[in-house]
């Protein structure tokens, strides 16, 4: 028994005749509404931290070798040196600078993961829109298929597919994207379901709009918020998945400095105390995923306000 409705805005007061002063106010309100949202977003510390981390990795990915202290591919010096002033993150088993490799290692994952997430969200959103809107037999059939997909372990299926099709970045994008689609579809479906309860959908039908029009022009823009949030969340998961696939050896191939791949090549040396070639790429993966989740959380709470 919480007094939930205390601040809920009621129907509010209505002018019988509209005073002109009200108008300029509401106009200003409109232009400021979007700006205010942005201000609220930028004011969130979580968002700022997430954005800073992401910007750092994106800059690394774009500038790559131009800003790394050493050549990440061929800058051989003494192998397995612990972190020092010379090599802040130490060197790997064949003497390449770990810091340089971690910096450049963001490149592949930041191309492959967003593409995979984008593909997953595109497919999933289309599927979710159709499921939520048409309901009935269409929803029943598609829902069962989606559930079947959801029952499959993503990594295992991706692993098998990549083994069969051969590993290349494009295949990774497609496999991860398709595996993510059902998850996105479910989120979008539930958003569409609550949206289509609203009377404006009925009103559109009463003036003779087709289902496709209602779906694409009336409903879709209103479920864009959850879709964008879903995109950021999937992006985070995609980084994980891509890194895992590289670790398992079916993602990116050597001599790529990809984080997952680096971990996989170096982790056996952990046992002999050589932790840095494994630790720093792993930290990079974690920082990116956490940063994206911080951004997604902030977006979600700002969009749902």
């Amino acid at each position, binding site marked *: *028994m919480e*007094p939930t*409705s*205390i*601040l809920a*805005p*009621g*129907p*509010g*007061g*209505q*002018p*019988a*005749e*509209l*005073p002109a002063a*009200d*108008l300029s106010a*509401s*106009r200003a*309100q*409109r232009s400021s*509404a979007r700006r205010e949202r942005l201000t609220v977003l930028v004011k969130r510390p979580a968002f700022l931290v997430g954005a800073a981390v992401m910007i750092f990795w994106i800059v690394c990915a774009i500038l790559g070798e131009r800003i790394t202290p050493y050549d990440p591919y061929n800058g051989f010096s003494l192998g397995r040196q612990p972190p020092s002033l010379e090599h802040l993150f130490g060197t790997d088993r064949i003497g390449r600078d770990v810091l340089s490799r971690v910096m450049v290692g963001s490149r592949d994952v930041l191309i492959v993961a967003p593409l995979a997430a984008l593909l997953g969200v595109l497919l999933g959103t289309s599927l979710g829109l159709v499921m939520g809107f048409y309901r009935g037999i269409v929803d029943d059939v598609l829902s069962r298929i989606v559930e079947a997909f959801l029952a499959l372990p993503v990594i295992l299926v991706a692993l098998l597919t990549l083994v069969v099709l051969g590993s290349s970045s494009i295949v990774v994008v497609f496999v991860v994207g398709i595996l993510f689609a059902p998850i996105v579809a479910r989120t979008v479906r539930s958003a569409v379901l609550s949206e289509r309860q*609203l*009377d*404006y959908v*009925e*009103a*559109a*039908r*009463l*003036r*003779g*709009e087709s289902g496709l029009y209602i779906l694409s022009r*009336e409903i879709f*823009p*209103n479920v864009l918020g959850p879709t964008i949030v879903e995109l950021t969340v999937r992006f985070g998961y995609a980084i994980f998945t891509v890194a895992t696939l590289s670790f398992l050896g079916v993602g990116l191939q050597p001599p790529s400095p990809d984080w997952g791949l680096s971990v996989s090549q170096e982790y056996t040396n952990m046992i002999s105390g050589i932790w840095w070639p494994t630790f720093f790429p792993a930290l990079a993966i974690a920082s990116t995923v956490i940063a994206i989740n911080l951004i997604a959380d902030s977006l979600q709470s700002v969009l749902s306000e």
Partner: protein
Amino acid sequence: MTTMIDLPPGAPVPPGDHAALRVEDLSLSYIVRGIARPVLRGVTFEIKPGESYGLVGESGCGKSTTAYAAVRYLARNARITGGRIFIDGSDMTTMSEDRLREFRMRHASMVYQDPGAALNPTTKVGPQVIEAFAVLGESRPVAEAHALEALERVQIADPRRVMQRYPHQLSGGMQQRIVIAMALASDPKLLVLDEPTTGLDATVEASVLDLVRSLQGETNAAILLIAHNLGVIRSVCDRVGVMYAGKIVEEGDAAAVFDKPQHPYTLALLRSLPRHGIRKSQRALATIPGSLPPVGATLPACVFVDRCPLATEICRTIDPPPVDLGDGRTSKCHHIDRLPELTEAPARAGAEHAEQGGAALELSGLSKTFHQGGHSVPALVGIDLTIHDGETLGLVGESGSGKSTLARTILGIERPDAGGGLELDSHQLAGRSTDRPTEDKRSIQMVFQNPESALNRGWTARRILARSVRKLTGLRGKAIDKRVDELAANLRLSQQHLDLKPRQLSGGLKQRLAIARAFAGDPRIVVADEPTSALDVSVQAAILNVLSDLQVENKTSYLLISHDLGVVRYLADRIAVMYLGRIMEVGDSEVVFRGPNHPYTEALLSAIPKVDGEPGARIRLGGEIPSPANPPSGCVFHTRCHRFMKGICEVTEPPLIEVEPGHQMRCHIPVEELRRLQAEARRSDEVLTTPPEALEAAEATAENDPA
């Protein structure tokens, strides 16, 4: 566990204080993003033990906040910025959280709008009521005995059986009774009721209000009642406070305040209500210019000054002090003596503007049956109804009577059963709107109850209108813009409004936009499903005026669905009364309100709490609305009818016959007999109820329920 609450230190009892609740100059703000937004601006009132006090006002005026503040049950971002609250002499504002909880448990109870949400859905009713007593420290058997007693006290006929039920198995009225029983468990000093009957049907509302009234006599609890419905307040409360923008602007004896308001706001509020049986042809409703100040606005000295026709310079500079008018009445206004200057809206030129035209829409033998899990549920049964050119047909009946289904069937949202006739201008309409040609879609449009939901929040007003014009009229290019401007002008929406999205428009403007959309294709018939029930009273008046003007200009016919008989009486030329998917009575509006009526209509009319306090027959229906899946035999109303005749009513269903010119009814009792009986009922003070043999018949029916 303590048994008595002693006074906290530092909170001396004001000498000679006998008030159950006393609120002194209470100010409260909500902190929104670090900014304090004032909601209450010095609220002062008190309630004596055994007295009932009503707070009225439009949404956002702070009446609910006041009620929650009284028991200090506030949202986390609420800050009391000044003033004090005493319940039975204890200062609520200085209590610690723990003491507060203990204090509320023993001395103050609240009842909310939705009883379904107040009860635990996974637990049977019995244990929940017993728990209410057990927390007070009673042993199990004592608590159980008290629980039974409590349920009897709230007039639940068979408490033992009810205690075995889950909340969802009980009707809304029954649930609210149980919540009230639990609230009274501690024999509280203060009982706060926040819109206790808002979600309930009229006949159920009437009996819950009766209960509140009778409890008031039995207990010594002070009652604080919050309601937006002025009739509810008048029928229950001894005294009333009228709130506006966080202040009580007028206070006094309920009947006196409503009959002879002494503040410009109260006066305007009452005049914006359709009452005293006035009709659209007689007078436009008064509207209050301007709009309610938004929550947290900075306001001039007198909070109502921006909308007050009497305002002068002094109102902006000096906060009007409460003027004592005797008999406990106060009004915060500098210009009480000038109130007579506020005259009512002039009478409308032109008498009855709805002279009966030809039939626009004709329904004959229209039925609609839903199929649910193997059962067929007849929602509409053989509806014969005509809507004439340019008239308003009011459709009334309680929830589940099939009003909305009828509207949806006419609109083609639901497909009627085969065999029924649905003719627009003498041609049969296709069952589904998707199968209807554009011309037919254009001709029948709808205004929804909630403009919030009916308008796409992502679209601008202009786009919403333009799209409807394009689809319904076939106009293209510049012609669309021209038509949109024309519609906007008719509904008094400005060009600036057209560039805004719904959420930037106020509730009233949104509903106007929705009405403009319905009129995009110059419809023949507009179905309006509770078009004003989501709006405040002063806004409702403007919308009713607009609807009535549009009808005169365009000769449009309306099918108006409303539970508010004042609204129906104002706008409707004819009225159809529905019960369990059947038309029970149809007739001219005046005839239906004057009677003789079908007994169901009679009960419905008597159940409405009236702002004017007019005396009338008191009829309280027993039983509950039967399930449409298993309608009673004979006359479907016999299980609740206070004029039940054994041997006839439960055997044969009476046909809908014309009892006088233009007045049809479905009842076995001859109309002259009804006329005599109803005149008698109006004169007597006795409460008419459903006779026991009718209720027995209801039980028998319920047991045969296939569901």
